[in-house]
């Protein structure tokens, strides 16, 4: 048996083991730590499946940013719930649930084992017009050339989710800024960490966007890294977020989707379809959209983690 096959089997078993722990652990905190590890392992699994673009997304969003979000959430929710601790699911119901889940898994495994040979694929169809776009990374080409509508709506979904988070603020806190949980504490290793990591992270995030049109990477991965650096700066107290009522912040948030939409509408004029790129200019248009989307997406993702605007918790009064 090949070593890579053994490695993948071990990885798959480890992923399943961590997942059992995430579901089965008694306290919420260990479950969240398990979930962070789960994200890390899954991003390695994506590398095994030869999907580096997805692996980058999972590493940045699944492991890093989601981990920070959930760790802060568990701290705020506390360890034990007052209710629900003693409630027990009836045995019969429990058995039924297990039966259902086993049936779902078994059915899916049966599907996996009976996949058609040879596998159906859109790779050749997707490759065919790839040359005309001038973009060498096929995944980026799919996201912004053939499935641009998906990507446009996706950025709108992220924006709406962020607006939803903001709408949860108390009326009295509306003019405040989103905080990532607590008051920053100046000095110490945290500031050093922020000062070293943030510049490198920002450069790498921009590199990720820039390289994304020809190599694995892209705006989502880059924006997630930039967002993570923003959160790090927020926690260390070296960066701050303006109040949510700030006009500049709001303009920056809608800039990306707005540019995307306007460029998409221009397709009516040049080619005759919505989101159709003018021939010969495809790569320029795709790069323009990527560049315009990156700061907006980075802000949205970071603000999603930072939560609704809140009053600074007073620690000593």
């Amino acid at each position, binding site marked *: 048996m090949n070593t890579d096959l053994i490695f993948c089997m071990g990885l798959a078993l480890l992923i399943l083991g961590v997942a059992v722990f995430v579901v089965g652990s008694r306290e919420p905190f260990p479950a969240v730590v398990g979930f962070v590890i789960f994200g890390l392992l899954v991003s390695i699994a994506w590398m095994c499946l030869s999907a580096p673009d997805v692996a980058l997304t999972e590493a940045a969003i699944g492991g890093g940013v989601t981990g920070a979000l959930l760790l802060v959430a568990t701290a705020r929710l506390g360890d034990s719930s007052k209710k629900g601790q003693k409630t027990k699911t009836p045995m019969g119901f429990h058995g039924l649930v297990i039966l259902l889940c086993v049936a779902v898994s078994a059915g899916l495994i049966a599907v996996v084992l009976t996949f058609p040979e040879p596998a159906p694929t859109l790779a050749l169809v997707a490759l065919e017009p790839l040359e005309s776009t001038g973009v060498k990374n096929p995944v980026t080409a799919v996201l912004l050339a053939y499935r641009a509508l998906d990507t446009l709506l996706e950025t709108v979904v992220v924006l709406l989710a962020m607006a939803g988070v903001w709408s949860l603020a108390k009326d009295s806190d509306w003019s405040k800024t989103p905080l990532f949980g607590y008051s920053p504490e100046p000095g110490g290793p945290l500031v050093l*960490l922020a000062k*070293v990591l943030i510049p490198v992270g920002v450069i790498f995030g921009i590199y990720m966007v820039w390289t994304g049109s020809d190599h694995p990477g892209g705006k989502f991965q880059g924006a997630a890294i930039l967002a993570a650096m923003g959160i790090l700066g927020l926690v260390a107290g070296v960066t701050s977020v303006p109040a949510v009522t700030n006009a500049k912040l709001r303009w920056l948030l809608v800039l990306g989707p707005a540019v995307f939409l306007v460029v998409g509408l221009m397709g009516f004029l040049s080619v005759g379809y919505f989101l159709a790129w003018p021939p010969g200019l495809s790569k320029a248009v795709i790069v323009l959209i990527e560049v315009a989307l990156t700061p907006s997406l980075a802000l949205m993702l970071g603000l999603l983690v930072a939560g609704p605007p809140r009053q600074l918790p007073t620690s000593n009064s």
Partner: protein
Amino acid sequence: MSTVLDLLTIVFVSVGVFFFVAGTVGLLRFPDTLTRLHALTKADNLGLGLIVIGLLPRVDSPQDALKLILVWALVLVASSNSSQLIARKVRREES
């Protein structure tokens, strides 16, 4: 020449992996949190560093070599600082 480089890779990567094993054993066997933290930082920094050195002869461009070294440097900064943060937290909780 290439066999010498291959040997270099094998030696350094093996020692690096050994440090990971040692760090994990420390994490599992040491009696309290601070000594475990000690074991952990050794594994992080040395193990990864040796693996990076072992892989350097195998890269085919200076950029790739730089990337490997950058990864190590970032892990060094991140792990030493977060270890200190964690140690402070342990101290604060004990007092």
